[in-house]
């Protein structure tokens, strides 16, 4: 009995109470998995004393969380959904934060010849034509939504044995693609930080259709009076500040830049960081 009590004391004693000044941000797995937050947020907390709690889920679920008022801000990457969210009045003050791009990855052998294609749409056509295995997130995430839009642009409604919807995150999709030699679409950040590539390679990138912008939205306090709008706005102001934008631009994995800050100039073509992201393979 005394041993058990001692154990409990040890376990509980080592924990201090969490700080009172915190905000919750609903965000995407891609930003989380890349390690950006681990790198960025401690700096924000150190300067402002505000703790940031990131709940990283698919964009669809992140929107839902914010819509229910379970987060104070939203940092996602699917513009049409974000606009709808703003239009419905759930969010206010959207700002561009950064972008990177989507890429098509697949087995090194590249049976569908995706790497020879001119653009992403052609790449998908080739995959469908060869009925090569393709892993789709199938989870209403930003990446999945973008993938669906691209199939639509290609005029293909993908189905058949070769098209596998797994209903899981980016990492799970990459793990699966790597183990069954399939193609998939990933955001560049997750891809670069992914550690189980196996024979997978980046086959196609640099198409404007693959532009992947991230924006921050504050949850509307008129819908949810309990949200910490002031703290959330402090964060929003900070992340688009020159200081934070520089930090984002300096974040690299294996000497590759993962995100291009674009709070000042929201177009990819504006050339905020044209050289640092290798846009063409």
């Amino acid at each position, binding site marked *: 009995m005394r041993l058990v009590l001692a154990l409990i004391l040890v376990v509980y004693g080592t924990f201090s109470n969490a700080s009172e000044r915190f905000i919750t941000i609903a965000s995407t797995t891609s930003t989380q998995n890349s390690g950006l937050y681990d790198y960025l947020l401690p700096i924000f907390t150190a300067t402002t004393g505000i703790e940031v709690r990131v709940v990283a889920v698919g964009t669809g679920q992140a929107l839902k969380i914010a819509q229910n008022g379970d987060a104070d801000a939203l940092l996602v990457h699917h513009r049409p959904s974000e606009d709808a969210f703003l239009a419905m009045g759930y969010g206010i003050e959207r700002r561009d934060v950064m972008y990177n791009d989507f890429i098509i990855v697949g087995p090194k052998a590249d049976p569908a010849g995706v790497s020879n294609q001119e653009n992403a749409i052609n790449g998908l056509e080739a995959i469908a034509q060869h009925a090569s295995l393709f892993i789709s997130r199938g989870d209403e995430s930003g990446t999945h939504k973008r993938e669906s839009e691209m199939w639509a642009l290609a005029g293909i409604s993908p189905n058949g044995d070769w098209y596998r919807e797994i209903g899981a995150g980016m990492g799970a999709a990459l793990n699966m693609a790597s183990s069954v030699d399939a193609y998939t679409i990933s955001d560049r950040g997750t891809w670069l930080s992914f*550690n189980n590539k196996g024979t997978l390679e980046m086959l196609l990138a640099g198409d404007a259709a693959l532009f992947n912008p991230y924006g921050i939205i504050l949850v509307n306090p008129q819908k949810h009076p309990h949200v910490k709008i002031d703290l959330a706005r402090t964060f929003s102001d900070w992340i688009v500040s020159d200081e934070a934008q520089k930090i984002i631009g300096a974040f690299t994995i294996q000497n590759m830049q993962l995100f291009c800050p674009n709070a000042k100039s929201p177009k990819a073509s504006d050339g905020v960081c044209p050289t640092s992201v290798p846009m063409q393979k």
Partner: protein
Amino acid sequence: MTILGQAAELVVSADAELVGIVGLSLRVSLTATLIASLFAIPLGAALAIWQFPFRQVLIVISTSLMALPPVVVGLIIYLLLSRAGPLGHYGILFTPTAMIIAQSVLIFPIVLALTREAILPVNRDYKNLLDAWDVSPVQRLKTLIWDARFAVVTGLLAGFGRALAEVGAVIIVGGNIAGFTRVMTTTIALETSKGNLELALALGIVLLSIAILINALIHWISSFGQKYQVSR
């Protein structure tokens, strides 16, 4: 070998982040076990001892609840705790408290059923004797739980193990927030999704070692009393 090495390294280095994650896992699951036990042990014992209206219904329901997948428990708690849900104004979604609630609900039926099973044989032995002594209901509960304590503790342990090992519920209601609601299992899920399979496995081994350690400890404690347990 490299994975085992990595696991050992993780433990030896006692990296602050890992210690925090392990500590939170233990804190959440221990608290959940204690809370679940607070209700499940007396109720489980009562189910073993007394006949009362709806007893069979309760038993069937609680046994069925054991089959409930953690994600479903997580989802229900999520909907209750969400700002849009009935308990939203407490603002405890995405906190360790929410994880404790989810795990308590998850393991309640396990502790309940195992307590009932632990008490049944002791009650069968003791019933006449306690009746002859006019033992009050509360005293009877205490006596039976105490004299079946080693089996009851085994049930607690099973509940604790399930709590410590589950990921589905805590990831939904906790949100896997770094440094705040990230526990061992959600870390393993996250590292797996990042393709860090070796790190994930190493963490899995750490989790397993902790489980073995705790089980060995409790087993060791209970072996002191095992001799009293022999039924005639």
